[in-house]
């Protein structure tokens, strides 16, 4: 019972802040709402007993990327950003894409209703103590079964970082 309530609570916050984020005129407000959206998704991870993902989501997204976002917002002088009209001219194209997306999601819900099982498939999380400690499982899968992709990804990231530094160096 508790899981259901928690899930709905976090989901509501996530959706609301996502909507608010898009509609805000003030850039910093939308950044704050983005942070709340990310925290809400972290909450959902926690509710599903995936605490490693929960903390990684917080450290990575909120603690890392969002700080960068806010930095950039601060450094770029804000009043210029405010004057530009928020919504680009292709309003209609955006509406079309949104409708298509909504149709697809609706279809997905509709068919899942058909399958065995009842209505909205809300995963009821397994009680914490029976789950294997998930940092270990994540570590095992990451470094044992998928070691090679992990290494490739890290090299890729390294290259991206060096590229960024080189580009920055030229400018100063």
């Amino acid at each position: 019972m508790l899981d259901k309530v928690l899930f709905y609570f976090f989901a509501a916050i996530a959706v609301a802040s996502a909507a608010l984020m898009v509609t805000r005129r003030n850039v910093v407000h939308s950044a704050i709402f983005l942070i709340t959206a990310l925290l809400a998704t972290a909450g959902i991870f926690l509710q599903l007993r995936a605490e490693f993902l929960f903390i990684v989501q917080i450290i990575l997204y909120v603690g890392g990327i969002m700080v960068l976002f806010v930095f950039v917002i601060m450094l770029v002088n804000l009043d210029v950003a405010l004057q530009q009209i928020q919504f680009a001219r292709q309003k209609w194209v955006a509406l079309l894409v949104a409708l298509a997306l909504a149709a697809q999601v609706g279809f997905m819900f509709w068919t899942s209703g058909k399958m065995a099982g009842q209505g909205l498939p809300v995963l009821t999380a397994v009680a914490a103590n029976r789950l294997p400690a998930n940092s270990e499982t994540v570590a095992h899968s990451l470094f044992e079964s998928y070691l090679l992709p992990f290494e490739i990804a890290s090299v890729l990231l390294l290259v991206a970082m060096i590229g960024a530094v080189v580009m920055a160096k030229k400018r100063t």
Partner: protein
Amino acid sequence: MMNAILQATLEFLKLYWVPLLCGVAIVAILPLIVGYIVLVERKLMADMQARLGPMRVGPHGLLQPIADALKLLIKEDIIPDNADRLVFWLAPVLSVGAALLALAGLAIGPAFQIAQDINIGILFVVGISALGIFGIVLGGWASNSHYSLMGALRSSAQLVSYETAAGMALVSALLFTGTLNIKSIVEAQNKEGIWFVMLAPVAFFTYLVASIAETNRAPFDLPEAESELVAGYMTEFSGFRWSLYFLAEYTNMIVVASVATTLFLGGWLRPFASVPWLNFLDFVPTLLMAGVGAYCIVRAPKQPTRVQQLFMLAVAGLCFVLGLVLLVPVLVLVAKPFYAGIHGGFWFIFKVSLYIYFFMWLRFTIPRYRFDQLMRLGWHFLIPLSIINVLLVGVALIAGAYFNLKGWGLLLVTTPAAVIALVVALLILNAEKERNARQNQTAASDFYAG
């Protein structure tokens, strides 16, 4: 719908009423604790500067924190015009919230831990305290004065760059424990019989420096003290709002100190916990308390007014009661199970206060870094050193496992690792000197990357 929520809360309460209670207790007591930490800091500072410090409010200024708190509550709360109200209100709350939340993950004693057995313990604490940055940046931005914005950006740049160094230092300590769960970390140190500070001294040193920078204190308290930034991001906040930031800073200090104690100084373990013939150390807490009580009694008659004498006697009484409480589990067998909780708590608090004492000691003696020196120290010295240290500790561990050394035996392997790390540190330092000499310091260096 309504009864679903009602039922859910009932279920929630049944399951988690103990940590909830501890949480409420901590949040209630913390401002008082922080107040007295500030008092101790002012007294220490005065003592080191050949003066007396606050003496007027209560005997020896003991009631000063309460007076400060009241003053801050009553003080007029100014909001700069056309400041962003929402963010102006949110920023300090975010800062304090992050700090208090991080406190939840910590274990004061074996029994006393709010988030009981989350197995990402240390990571949880570090991750949540990283949220504090938003409090600072948004605070700086909301008071929309150019100077506080600059101060906010500088302090957050400092926080971000020193977090990496702190993270890497923790990683090299975690190599020994093999798990993130706080309780098992301390058990590992107990089983090994040796604290990790001996095994990874360089990691402890980098963590120490990084944590000072992370809480914006001592030689790194640049944003507030910078002469033209006046008080950095805190300038526009006044009254209670400002004290929230203050509370966040000191809670961060406690959080950082307790992470260091849990990971490096053996959490709530009595020094040489597993060495049987050193058990007389159990009496140290009681003797300490008795000593403090006796000192209060000696000082009591000297107090100017009657009420202050009574107050001093009350403090003395409190110390004696504490001494007794610490004595009972050691002697009386029936109270054995409480032994771990009470003594553990004492030793933990003792180590945390030693760590904080060192923070304060630094603050009074050494001058302040310039911002670019500070960033250069962070990026050019601390981060490479801590990364290399992680490698070296890893290699040491493999060697240790190979020769299957245990406990103190591990020292044979980790000390050479530490020595190599120091050599590397020196290499980095004089590489730094040559680069400076070549550059003769006039090249513009990018401040945010350092």
